[in-house]
């Protein structure tokens, strides 16, 4: 007897959201292990996992079949939807699949307007449903199987409705013909399976249709069945027990991949049904590779006609711009340009550059600030076209990191646009290329530790309080790491006695299973696909939550692997802020020079950088950057490039930071792991700082071609499977051996590459960002009022809360003025003060409770004439009493007060005024109650509560006297202390961070009126002091002063809530109230 053979044609991965429990890769691995002839992926109305599936199958030499299980309307009106399995037989069939899935998901959507009109009636994410009419329109190249027990034929059969089932089967046969339709039989040892198989056999005999056996796989191995049960319960938002009672869970655990032997046993009486699987597998030959036809032909912006020769056009554009970018032409420029153009021509990418050029051109014409980021800045062509702002030659950038001749993958151009105007650019792409050819790439949102524990814990009936405790106590973000943590928690104490079905262990096991499991698809932050052929023949589309937005079912990796070109249109808050600052400076009559052309060598800017005086600036403002700046001591633009790149997990994990700093300071000699690396790492003193260096190291040390080196970089960055990494590693070691590098050294070099590659910036990217950093520093230093105005108006952005930005503005001579109903506009605006300096007037929108309508009313009434007094304001602005109360408390009505600024008196007055908008002004009777003056602290607290910042003073100033009495220092004093000194200080917790690279150390920034002080909290101290450091806003800390160069921090030993420390002499109840108020307003 010959060995049985089998191909599985019905299989769900976890891209059948909340139904499948295994990754495409796990399914492929198991199918290969079982020796299956082929495997089809048939996720519900989705090809989201198709590229990953196809790649994994190729790597495992398994024949992959692309398919879907589509959700089909009932044939008779009113019936419930049913399933139908569709497999792509040909390439055309693959396009059909995409169209059908798109139809199932998008047919319900309202028609989209072609221009920027609002979309009416957008349903957001909807349950997919395909109509029979649509199905009938698209049958080419598809083999249809009748579906699972919920299938179009089996469902009525299972209910004993033979005639109804017959009608459906006949309809399907009319549509596909007898060669392309199979009746699907499944046997999963469920009660009733025997009977259903018998009935389907009878049906097949009656209609003379072939049978095919499938197994409706939902997980790779039996262990996956629990996770699937849990997913089904999560999907229904009920507990497992309840899901079971509602009959939502299969009673069996048999929906795993089965071997040919096992299937032969199940269908011992039906050899033809098994033979069908092989015949179908043989016929299905569609693949995923769209590298050949990806881009639309570029249309001449002048004539709107398709360009006959895109390359010639690009060539001309580049040469036209040479003068502007390189006033003095050098041979190196011409050579580099010629080389790049040659590579671009061979790779047929001229059209791609033109499309990007056109988008950038549009943005510039509209005054939308933009700049290319990432590896594109390695290209002189991108520089000439104005896509990027960094001269690749001046910075020794490597074109091969962006695009190389032997590169197998597509390049990637990412452009940052002013965040507040990015949508205009996206809409332009839709208009220019048409909605049929344009879509956003999706982002596969996967389960994180917390969401996994929450969802699974609910299914397992964990009490809410326990789940809160578990998920807030977690240190890790990935479900895998969290599972390990849970196991440690469970085993703490009673390792020996813990039963395997202990609830925590059960939870841990399931949480681990959710690692990488998608929760839903969302819109990628900016990835835009633009294709020549209609998109719905390449990848299915589905509606996103955002009105009018349709996303492709592939994420950026899948698009790239399928050979598609995407353009990342990203929103960058800082570009918007720079635009706004420039505009404000113009209004203030102090216009800034063209920031694209300012010299990058201003010593004052570097002095600020060396001091770490960078709050609000792009990239270099964070706590970690501020600690690094006084150690790195930047002196020229290249140093800012390093600065941007070095505070990254790559260099940190690669162990590059300390050697770099020591070598830079001349404390240790520059050395290389091997002499071949000297030319590559020379610029960065022998350490790996930039991604380009990964490529160059692979070329220099292991003889990789540039393209191969880039594949290595990608493999490292994406953390490909261990087997793939091992192959890369062998190839590297082999190459290194041929170069005469001993095995130990080669291994060490590879280890550094591994540690680095995923989390480092390309130098081109760092340089692009460094430029924006410099521009923002320039504005901060030379146009501070305009700069802070822009920052405050475009919140949230950057690293710091607005209170810190306001404090920084104050320290740089820009006063923050409270809101004023007679002066404030909607947002923050610069205002000249009496002393001829610029201050920022807080906008009305900053006051909690002031909605758009209220602001419009105030401004309109004020335009007629300024408000005379509170009564006049109430009468003419017509605001609710609550809103007026907020305005008074925030200080916006201080001008009406007598004595000035007496807010309590104003509140008293408000009580006497009829605030209903009256046609006749009601004469308000003057009265004056004898009220105690508002405590300065209380006033500040009110402001904090309503504005999120305190215009006049920093909170800590109110406590300074008390602190002085107790010999608790200001942070500025701590910064003067010697290394190792014991210090006691206090402040407002501005930032709290626990970087993954820091081994559990927590970094905090403490603010007082003088600035920020960095706190370092070791894990054991954090454990002890967590309630204080996490809970209190104002804290008292004790610790040791640490100094590294000019950088100062405090190593925390003790901490306490500040108000508790002060409680002895202040009113404890008042301080508790103050504390509560702060908590509410701050979080």
């Amino acid at each position, binding site marked *: 007897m010959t060995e049985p053979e089998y191909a599985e044609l019905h299989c769900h991965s976890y891209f059948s959201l909340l139904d499948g429990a295994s990754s495409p890769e796990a399914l492929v691995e198991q199918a290969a292990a079982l020796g299956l002839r082929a495997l089809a992926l048939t996720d519900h109305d989705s090809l989201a996992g198709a590229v990953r599936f196809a790649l994994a199958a190729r790597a495992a030499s398994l024949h992959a079949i692309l398919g879907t299980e589509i959700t089909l309307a009932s044939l008779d009106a009113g019936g419930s939807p049913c399933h139908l399995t569709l497999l792509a037989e040909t390439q055309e069939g693959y396009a059909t699949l995409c169209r059908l899935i798109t139809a199932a998901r998008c047919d319900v959507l309202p028609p989209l307007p072609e221009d920027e009109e609002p979309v009416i009636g957008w349903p957001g994410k909807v349950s997919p449903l395909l109509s029979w009419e649509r199905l009938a329109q698209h049958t080419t190249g598809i083999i249809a199987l009748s579906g699972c027990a919920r299938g179009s034929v089996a469902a009525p059969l299972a209910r004993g409705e033979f005639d109804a089932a017959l009608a459906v089967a006949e309809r399907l046969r009319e549509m596909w013909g007898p060669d392309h339709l199979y009746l699907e039989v499944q046997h999963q040892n469920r009660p009733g*399976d025997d009977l259903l198989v018998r009935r389907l056999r009878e049906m097949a005999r009656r209609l003379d249709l072939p049978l095919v056996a499938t197994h409706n796989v939902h997980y790779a191995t039996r262990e996956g069945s629990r996770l699937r049960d849990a997913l089904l319960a999560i999907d229904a938002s009920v507990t497992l027990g309840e899901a079971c009672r509602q009959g939502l869970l299969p*009673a*069996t*655990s048999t929906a795993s991949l089965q071997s040919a032997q096992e299937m032969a046993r199940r269908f011992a009486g039906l050899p033809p049904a098994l033979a069908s699987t092989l015949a179908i597998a043989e016929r299905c030959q569609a693949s995923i590779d769209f590298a050949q036809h990806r881009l639309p032909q570029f249309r001449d912006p002048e004539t709107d006609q398709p360009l006959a020769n895109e390359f010639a056009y690009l060539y001309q554009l580049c040469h036209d711009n040479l003068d502007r970018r390189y006033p003095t032409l050098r041979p190196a420029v011409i050579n580099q340009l010629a080389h790049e153009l040659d590579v671009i021509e061979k790779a047929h990418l001229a059209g791609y550059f033109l499309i990007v050029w056109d988008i950038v051109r549009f943005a510039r014409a509209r005054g939308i600030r933009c700049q290319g980021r990432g590896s594109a800045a390695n290209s002189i062509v991108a520089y000439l076209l104005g896509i990027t702002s960094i001269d690749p030659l001046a910075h020794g950038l490597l074109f091969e990191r962006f695009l190389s001749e032997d590169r197998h993958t597509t390049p990637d151009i990412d452009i940052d646009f002013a965040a507040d105007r990015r949508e205009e650019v996206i809409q332009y792409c839709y208009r220019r290329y048409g909605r049929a050819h344009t879509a956003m790439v999706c982002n596969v949102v996967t389960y994180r530790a917390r969401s996994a524990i929450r969802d699974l814990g609910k299914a397992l009936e964990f009490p809410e309080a326990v789940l809160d405790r578990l998920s807030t106590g977690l240190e890790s973000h990935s479900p895998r790491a969290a599972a390990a943590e849970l196991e440690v928690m469970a085993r703490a104490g009673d390792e020996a006695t813990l039963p395997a079905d202990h609830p925590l262990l059960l939870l841990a096991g399931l949480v681990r299973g959710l690692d990488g499991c998608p929760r839903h698809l969302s819109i990628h932050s900016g990835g835009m696909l633009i294709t020549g052929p209609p998109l719905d023949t390449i990848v299915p589309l589905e509606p996103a939550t955002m009105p009018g937005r349709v996303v492709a079912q592939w994420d950026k990796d899948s698009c790239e692997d399928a050979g598609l070109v995407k353009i990342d249109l990203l929103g960058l808050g800082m570009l918007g802020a720079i635009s706004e600052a420039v505009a404000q400076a113009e209004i203030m009559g102090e216009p800034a020079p063209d920031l694209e052309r300012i010299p990058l060598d201003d010593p004052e800017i570097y002095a600020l950088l060396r001091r770490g005086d960078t709050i609000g600036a792009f990239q270099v403002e964070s706590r970690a950057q501020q600690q690094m700046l006084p150690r790195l001591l930047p002196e020229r633009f290249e140093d800012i490039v390093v600065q941007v790149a070095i505070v990254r997990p790559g260099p940190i994990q690669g162990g590059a930071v300390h050697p770099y700093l020591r070598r830079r300071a001349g404390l240790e000699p520059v050395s290389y792991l091997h002499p071949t690396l000297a030319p590559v790492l020379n610029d960065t003193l022998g350490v790996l700082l930039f991604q380009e260096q990964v490529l160059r190291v692979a070329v220099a040390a292991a003889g990789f071609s540039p393209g191969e080196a880039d594949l290595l970089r990608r493999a490292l960055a994406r953390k490909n499977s261990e087997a793939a990494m091992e192959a890369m590693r062998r190839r590297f070691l082999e190459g290194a051996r041929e170069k005469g590098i001993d095995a130990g050294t080669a291994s060490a070099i590879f280890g550094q590459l591994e540690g680095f590659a995923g989390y480092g910036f390309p130098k081109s990217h760092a340089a692009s960002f460094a430029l924006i950093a410099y521009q923002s520093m320039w504005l901060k230093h030379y146009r501070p009022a305009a700069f802070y105005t822009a920052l405050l108006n475009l919140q949230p952005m950057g690293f710091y809360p607005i209170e810190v930005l306001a404090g920084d503005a104050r320290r740089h001579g820009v006063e923050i003025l409270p809101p004023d109903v007679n002066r404030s506009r909607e947002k923050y605006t610069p205002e000249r003060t009496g002393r001829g300096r610029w201050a920022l007037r807080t906008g009305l929108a900053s006051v909690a409770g002031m909605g758009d309508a209220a602001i419009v009313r105030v401004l309109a009434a004020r335009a007629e004439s300024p408000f005379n007094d509170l009564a006049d304001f109430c009468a003419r602005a017509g605001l609710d009493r609550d809103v007026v109360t907020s305005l008074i408390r925030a200080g916006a009505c201080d001008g009406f007060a007598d004595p000035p600024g007496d807010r309590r008196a104003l509140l008293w007055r408000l009580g006497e005024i009829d605030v209903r908008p009256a046609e006749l002004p009601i004469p308000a009777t003057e009265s004056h109650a004898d009220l105690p003056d508002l405590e300065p602290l209380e006033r500040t607290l009110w402001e904090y509560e309503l504005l999120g910042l305190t215009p006049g003073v920093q909170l800590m100033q109110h406590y300074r006297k008390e602190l002085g009495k107790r010999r608790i220092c200001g942070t500025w004093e701590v910064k003067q202390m010697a290394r190792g000194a014991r210090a006691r200080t206090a402040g407002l917790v501005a930032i709290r961070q626990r970087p993954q690279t820091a081994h559990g150390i927590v970094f905090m920034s403490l603010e007082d009126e003088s600035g920020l002080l960095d706190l370092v909290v070791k894990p054991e101290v954090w454990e002890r002091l967590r309630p204080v450091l996490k809970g209190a806003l104002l804290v008292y800390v004790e610790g040791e002063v640490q100094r590294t160069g000019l950088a100062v921090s405090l190593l925390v030993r003790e901490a306490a809530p500040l108000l508790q420390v002060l409680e002895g002499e202040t009113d404890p109840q008042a301080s508790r109230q103050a504390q509560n108020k702060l908590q509410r307003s701050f979080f």
Partner: protein
Amino acid sequence: MTRIWSEGEPIRMETDGENRPVRFLWCGRRHQIQQIVQRWQVDSDWWSSEGRVWRDYVAAITTDGVLLVLYYDHLGAEWRLAKIYD
């Protein structure tokens, strides 16, 4: 649909090579399986405090013409008699 997993009576079962029931002893009498009507599996309730239920069920007719439901309990590795239809 509520599922109730009642415990059956333990029986001594002889099976064939593929763990299919052939004959068993119950109440001191020998019963011979003549025909297996249906087989199905249950693997459920792994989350509940009562514990997991993992059984291979068999509906069979004996040579005496009695219809029975038997199951093999994977966790206890034993056969039990769940129901008799007289």
